[in-house]
């Protein structure tokens, strides 16, 4: 329970604010101290070690100096009253020396040792380090560094054991350490603040393109610009490029809707006018009924045509490859059912691995309308064959029906052909096909098929994904 509450409060503490800059700053505020504490700790430790080493080596030198001035007289170690090191003679120098014999008896003490407590002397006398190995320690409660140096004096075959101990007050060293610590943490805190400040500035500078981007977008919103014009760094550029594309396609879409609506409204006006006008003409009930019927048929066609235009996508979706064989097989399967009486022979030639680069719905509409015609007018045979020509997919749909008259055997593709300009009675299927094909910059041709009927030859962009990888088109084109 407590653990849960702890993690919860931790989460609350680390709940990250919303902006990118604040997130990064927040991370630094939290993580930098950890880094700094580690670094500071290591530095402090290193300094302490080196300080102790230097104190120890000083003590060793003093022990050796003491030993150098010692003489052995009548089986006793004798030291002069005054030594080279003046601090041994000053009571408050903090440095004192004691010499014990093997039994722990104090044989000699420096003049400076007058203030050393007897208790401490007694304690030191009991310490017995290994012969030949010195010992250094920090007596924190007594505020002394203690250096013990055991020695054996061999004279005339006899061994005399002594122990030299150097006591050094730790006051200086501790003060040095404290000063170092104060300075160290002071500087590290300064580094921390400086680092945060620097990071803030770096972030401000580094994230500036995003601010420009936001400004750019709000300019588009307010209608002052139509796309993102600014120069953006490499990481942001894909975003702005895609945004521009999105904005562009959205604009086109809007335009298309507007056009479709306008087309729809305009093309409905004519039949409405005819109906309206009929009221003031002399009509029998029968002729009036026929007129209404004709005009409502016309309106139905118009609505259907505009609907199918609205369904199909004008923009080519990126990288979508639609297998042609699947769509053809599905539609032929469905149509074989509808025209089951005709027992049509369907021949599919080389459709495998042919892919259309575009929207699946568009392909379905296109093939649906053309294949339905083939099934409707054909006697007994329908053939679909596909081939690739450079970047294009050529699909031929032929039947053995009556075919299309010579007068109509020309390219019937007209950009943006409108239904109300086409002849009445003609199905909307071909108009829809022509529209879809033109949106892919393709082509539609009608000619006589080798089967005897009509052959619709359509040219569409092919997706050749298996042969070459899709490469991004250069932007400066």
């Amino acid at each position, binding site marked *: 329970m407590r653990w849960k509450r702890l993690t919860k409060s931790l989460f609350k503490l680390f709940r990250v604010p919303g902006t990118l800059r604040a997130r990064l700053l927040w991370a630094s505020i939290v993580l930098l101290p950890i880094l700094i504490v580690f670094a500071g700790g290591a530095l402090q430790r290193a300094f302490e070690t080196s300080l102790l080493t230097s104190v120890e080596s000083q003590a060793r030198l003093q022990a050796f100096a003491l030993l150098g001035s010692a003489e052995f007289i009548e089986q006793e170690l004798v030291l002069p009253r005054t030594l080279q090191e003046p601090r041994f003679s000053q009571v408050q120098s903090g440095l004192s020396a004691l010499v014990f014999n093997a039994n722990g008896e104090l044989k000699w003490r420096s003049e400076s040792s007058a203030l050393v407590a007897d208790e401490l002397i007694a304690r030191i006398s009991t310490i017995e380090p290994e012969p030949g190995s010195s010992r250094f320690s920090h007596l924190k409660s007594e505020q002394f560094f203690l250096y013990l140096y055991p020695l054996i004096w061999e004279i005339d075959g006899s061994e005399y054991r002594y122990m030299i101990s150097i006591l050094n007050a730790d006051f200086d060293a501790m003060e040095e350490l404290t000063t170092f610590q104060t300075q160290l943490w002071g500087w590290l805190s300064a580094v921390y603040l400086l680092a945060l400040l620097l990071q803030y500035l770096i972030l401000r500078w580094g994230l500036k393109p995003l601010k420009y981007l936001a400004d750019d977008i709000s300019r588009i919103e307010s209608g002052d610009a139509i796309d993102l014009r600014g120069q953006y760094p490499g990481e942001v550029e894909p975003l702005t490029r895609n945004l521009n594309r999105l904005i562009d396609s959205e604009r086109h879409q809007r335009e298309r809707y507007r056009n479709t609506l306008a087309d729809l409204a305009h093309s409905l006006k004519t039949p409405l006018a005819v109906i309206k006008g009929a009221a003031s003409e002399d009509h029998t009930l029968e002729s009036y009924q026929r007129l209404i019927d004709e005009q409502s048929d016309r309106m*139905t066609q118009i609505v259907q045509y505009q*609907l199918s235009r609205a369904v199909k996508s004008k923009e080519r979706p990126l990288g979508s490859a639609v297998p042609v064989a699947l769509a053809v097989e*599905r*539609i032929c*399967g*469905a149509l074989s*059912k*509808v025209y089951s009486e005709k027992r049509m022979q369907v021949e599919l030639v080389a459709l495998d691995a042919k892919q259309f680069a575009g929207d699946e719905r568009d392909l379905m509409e296109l*093939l649906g*309308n053309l294949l339905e015609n083939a099934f409707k007018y054909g006697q007994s045979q329908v053939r679909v064959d596909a081939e690739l020509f450079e970047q294009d997919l050529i699909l031929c749909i032929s039947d053995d029906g009556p075919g299309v008259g010579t007068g109509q055997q020309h390219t019937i593709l007209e950009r943006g052909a409108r239904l109300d300009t086409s002849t009445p009675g003609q199905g909307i299927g071909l108009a829809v096909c022509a529209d879809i094909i033109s949106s892919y910059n393709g082509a539609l041709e009608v000619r006589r098929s080798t089967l005897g009927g009509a052959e619709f030859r359509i040219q569409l962009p092919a997706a050749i994904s298996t042969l070459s990888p899709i490469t991004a088109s250069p932007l400066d084109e």
Partner: protein
Amino acid sequence: MKILIVEDDPDLRRQLVSSLASRSYTVEECADGDEAVYLGTEYEFDLAIVDIGLPGRSGLDVIRAWRQIQRDFPILILTARGDWQDKVEGLEAGADDYLVKPFHIEELSARVNALMRRAAGHSKPQMRFGPITLDTTARSVLLYEEEIKLTSYEYRTLEYLMLHAGQTISKAELTEHLYHQDYDRDSNVLEVFIRRLRQKLDPDQSLNPIMTVRGLGYRFALEATH
């Protein structure tokens, strides 16, 4: 011939029902998918007209449910969108033909006729059985090329028997396909129709087109001539 109409729009449904009923079809109607599945499962139909865009359980779902339990009556789907994705999906689900809204009732009637004929294995709207010709488009019967006047029920009875020529049809099956489900099924009425048909089709009793199979029902005994 009994037709089930599944259409959620009340106006269009009323239109469909009245125009098909006036063409001598027996019509059942419903407005939602679940009821449609129930009706198609529990009752015999000769054809169903299903709107793809039903609220709730879709028309496609209804068709799949029927086909799954081997209901093989022909199905005509109605679609408002009219795009090929819709049509192909409907036909793949088990429908036999489609019609895009809005349509003329004549067009619908022609499709219904064609589907019924197809289901009975005939490819032309006129079916000849010796001297008797059944015209499913004109909904008339000719004897030696002369039209016989038939009432709507007489025509229905004869059409059903002729479309199932050679098969013995029980009285129950005939009643089921000729009348509404809530109709008072009195087999005497059927016998009256059969007797009248025999009189009209075979006044000199030389053809004997409708045979009584004792204890089982009736059979149209003439063979189709092509």
